[in-house]
């Protein structure tokens, strides 16, 4: 999956990869279940919706806009479903968005308890919750590049490649980075990593 943004910087920088693949988002609107979300049973229903979401979509967005309160048992069900959904469809972004401070807090608590890192869209930026602090730094640098190879990001972060690969694996597991073979590689196999455009994701919110 290749990013479509920043044509101008792509023109200026030959290391930036751009394509015109159209973006299709699958949005799960939590607000449809009410402003107060509770019970593990309702969480299981939402988890089923997450698992049944369109696998061909570019991104799966859990839109919490309008949800004022969510309980931890409910979010626990959703977090587990998100984790398995990312594992099943690693070429799709999975992002939670539209969270107020309380829902974000509870989601973070649940993610930490489970040892799961998750991507959230907050204030027009992508963040990682539930993971180590360096993931946030890595994601920020990845966002600046949008589409990149591992050596490019390693250079930007002044990291050794094995260390960077560890972080990239964790960001992939969080659903905020995808990877694909670089068809333009002249020799051997080269991977291209990609992060979503927060502005594109935000357009799908309520």
């Amino acid at each position, binding site marked *: 999956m290749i990013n479509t943004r920043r044509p101008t910087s792509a023109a200026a920088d030959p290391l930036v990869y751009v394509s015109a693949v159209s973006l299709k988002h699958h949005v799960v609107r939590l607000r449809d279940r009410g402003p107060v979300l509770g*019970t*593990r049973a309702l969480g299981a229903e939402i988890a089923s919706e997450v698992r049944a979401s369109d696998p061909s979509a570019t991104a799966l967005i859990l839109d919490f806009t309008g949800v004022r309160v969510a309980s931890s048992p409910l979010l626990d069900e959703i977090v587990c479903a998100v984790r398995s959904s990312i594992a099943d469809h690693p070429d799709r972004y999975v992002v939670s968005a539209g969270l107020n401070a*309380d829902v974000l807090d509870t989601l973070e608590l649940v993610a930490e308890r489970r040892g799961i890192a998750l991507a959230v869209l907050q204030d027009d930026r992508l963040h990682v919750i539930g993971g180590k602090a360096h993931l946030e730094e890595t994601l920020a640098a990845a966002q600046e590049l949008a589409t990149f190879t591992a050596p490019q990001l390693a250079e930007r972060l002044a990291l050794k490649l094995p260390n960077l690969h560890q972080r990239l694996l964790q960001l992939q597991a969080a659903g905020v980075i995808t990877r694909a073979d670089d068809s333009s590689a002249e020799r051997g196999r080269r991977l291209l990593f990609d992060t979503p455009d927060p502005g594109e994701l935000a357009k799908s919110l309520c």
Partner: protein
Amino acid sequence: MAMKFREPELLSLSGPITRERALDALLRVGPAVGAAAELAMFAEEMTDVDAVAGAAVRLRICRHLREHTDGQMTIVPPRDALVAERLLELLSPLPERVVLSDGRAMPEESRYGLVPATLIADGDDARLAAEFALEACEHARVSEVRANVIAVTIMELADNALAHATGTPDPPAVAATVTGRERFVEIATVDLGAGLSEQSDCLDRVRQIPGTKGGNGFLAHLIRKGASRELQISIEIITGVARLRWTATRHRTVRANYVPGTTVIVRINP
């Protein structure tokens, strides 16, 4: 038509009926009486009431009506007008077969009882109580930031009480109050689960509840959340012979007189 004789069971409440006093006075197991027994709750001398008392009275009503399928309950309201109003707000609406001795109407508006004492039979009830709390907070002019914290606290405490109260004949009860110009809010859940209160090492178990720094449970999270929102949050747990008082800077467990079940009280103040 002949009057049906109802065997009476008397319950006298005097002084401040709050916290442990409320739990002890209301939830102590009384002598067995007939199926048509009437419970008379004399609250004339009550001088104070709180969310714990509201929840405990609700549980006592539930127990009486369950044990005495043809029975009824009469409440003699407190003589003190403010205490009476607060108690009745917490008990509004009264269940069937529960009456007031003076036949007065229940309060229409609620100033003190943010969430009247409510039985929580399942997770849906917990969610509905949280939804009710959001509306009540708006009506009581509680800020949205605090309202959200209050609602999620009610839902989490109620869920937690449900988990603790498995196997008990009566479900847990939740109540919340709001007082003063500052809109001080107190939430209480009372459950009669025996898993903690009846253990010989109850005190040690409560003492081992992880504090704010290391804890990843909801209560530790709530204290941290309060600090990040500039809210004063304090927690009390009353169970068996153990009492835990917990704030951002304090986590202290002491031994006290036995009370049944587990009660969690959370204060969320500006």
